[in-house]
């Protein structure tokens, strides 16, 4: 549960992130690449080293003390993640390598079982490649078809077009909660409700939501929800798939190996119960254990406080960037997480990114793994500044100043 505490004290938060306190190219680091991955507070780093220094053991089957400690710590994160997204049951939380693996798991396991020739899968024009390609792979295999919800000029989904697509009775709808390239927050509750009325199951890619938006999978009523640890202050290489228990029970295992079995003979193997059925092999124990501290970090700040503070940063960034002559904001949806893409006429985004880096400012440039979206907008790429709860308005001033210098030099 998110706990409402005092509003954000950014200096106190920054003090917890050792990586932020360094010079890059002789200038204090300004880290605005949070949509790609955000930085880790000391407590997450400490949890990871503590695990390897004191508790490291293989989980679930060991009978010794360390194995018990490691298992307890690993399962504690499952409970934290259950609470974090308000899942009904802990066995609905499956640890994966992150969103990409979670989507691949659903596409392969659910898709192979329930998709048939001629069936339709709906995705949106705002999707990251990782919510496009797994569906293309399974649709090719099952002779199913992909339909795409179009995107408007401001970067919002065209819901009227979506309603029309639903008349084709799709089997699956897969969209993101928030767009990584543009920041658009999609009306996922409505999208899910409409999909269910049409008889489809819904997967939500929550990569850009986990650190920035409240998540309640029961209220949303989504069937699957995917999260990456590294985008919510946790370690890389882990994340979760949430799935409704009744659906996960109907799905065959995605990978075979240790842990996921009940009994193995050479003629027949019976599978373990949820969630272990989908956790073949030794999982990424240390990173899962450390993820728990990331959840604690977010809960202690309070999601509502984070949302309010980051919105303030976004509004400020929009104000500063749009005041610069020559800057074009890309992605102007009414509801957005703290991501702002932009372009400068006549200057390539690669040059802007490189020049900002010389001033210690880290942004991302390019197509952000959303090439179909870039095609839709008629651009090759953007410069993307994405903010986190440890960023400040003074840093946004530095970004604006850097952009102004580039324009002055190149024009």
């Amino acid at each position, binding site marked *: 549960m998110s706990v409402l505490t005092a509003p954000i004290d950014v200096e106190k938060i920054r003090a917890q992130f050792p990586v932020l306190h360094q010079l890059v*190219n*002789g200038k204090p680091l300004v880290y605005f690449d949070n949509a790609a991955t955000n930085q880790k507070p000391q407590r997450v780093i400490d949890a990871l080293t503590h695990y390897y220094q004191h508790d490291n053991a293989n989980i679930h089957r060991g009978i010794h003390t360390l194995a018990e400690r490691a298992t307890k710590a690993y399962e504690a994160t499952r409970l934290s993640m259950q609470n974090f997204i308000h899942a009904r049951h802990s066995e609905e939380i499956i640890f994966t390598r992150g969103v990409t693996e979670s989507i691949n798991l659903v596409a392969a396991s659910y898709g192979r079982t329930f998709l048939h020739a001629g069936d339709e899968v709906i995705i949106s024009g705002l999707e990251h490649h990782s919510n496009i390609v797994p569906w293309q792979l399974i649709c090719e295999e099952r002779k199913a078809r992909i339909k795409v919800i179009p995107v408007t000029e401001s970067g919002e989904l065209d819901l009227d077009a979506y309603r029309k697509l639903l008349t084709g009775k799709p089997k699956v709808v897969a969209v993101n909660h928030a767009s990584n390239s543009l920041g658009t927050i999609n009306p996922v509750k409505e999208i899910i409700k409409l999909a269910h009325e049409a008889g489809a199951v819904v997967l939500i890619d929550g990569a850009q939501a986990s650190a920035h938006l409240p998540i309640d999978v029961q209220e949303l009523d989504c069937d699957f929800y995917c999260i990456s640890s590294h985008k919510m202050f946790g370690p890389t290489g882990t994340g979760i798939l949430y799935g409704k228990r009744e659906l996960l029970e109907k799905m065959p295992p995605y990978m075979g190996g240790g842990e996921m079995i009940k009994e193995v003979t050479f003629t027949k193997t019976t599978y373990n119960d949820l969630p272990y059925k989908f956790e073949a092999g030794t999982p990424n124990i240390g990173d899962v254990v450390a993820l728990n501290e990331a959840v604690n970090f977010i809960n202690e700040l309070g999601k509502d406080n984070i949302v309010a503070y980051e919105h303030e940063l976004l509004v400020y960034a929009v104000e500063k960037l749009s005041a610069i002559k020559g800057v074009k904001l890309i992605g102007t949806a009414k509801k957005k997480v703290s991501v702002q893409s932009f372009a400068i006429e006549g*200057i*390539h*985004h*690669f*040059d802007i990114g*490189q*020049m900002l*880096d*010389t*001033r210690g400012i880290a942004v991302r*440039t*390019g197509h952000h793994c959303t090439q179909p979206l870039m095609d839709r907008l008629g651009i090759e*790429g953007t410069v993307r500044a994405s903010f986190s709860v440890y960023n400040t308005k003074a840093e946004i001033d530095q970004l604006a100043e850097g952009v102004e210098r580039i324009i002055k*030099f*190149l024009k």
Partner: protein
Amino acid sequence: MSINQIQDEIIGEFSLLDGDMEMTVFYIMELGQKLPAMREVDKTEDNVVKGCQSKVWLTARLENGGIVFEADSNTAITKGLVSLLVRIFNHQKPEAILNAELYFMNKIGMERFIGTQRSNGFAAMIKQMKLYAFAFKTQTELAR
């Protein structure tokens, strides 16, 4: 001037910037702006050296035993880097280009652009220039 003499000359020019990264990048872009314009008809898909975020066009011809390169890029920084390569390699013999060891990048603080073929066409361009050199060398030897 030999390839290494030109590299040393470039290192000398950049040393005046005192390792200031912003000034270094500004200077590189300024050099790019001075690169003789490439004919639009030469900017074909065949002449593209592709990187993930920037494009480079490159042509080469043999003139009096030396190779003449013409190049352009759609990004200002890559164009500047490309102009340095053109300055170093133009009118050099194919053999000299093939055997050249490029060390100026490290000395001017631009080593990050080497080996990051994914983000810019620069590393790919060096390879392409050497391929041209190899082709011209073989051609000349066969003609003998």
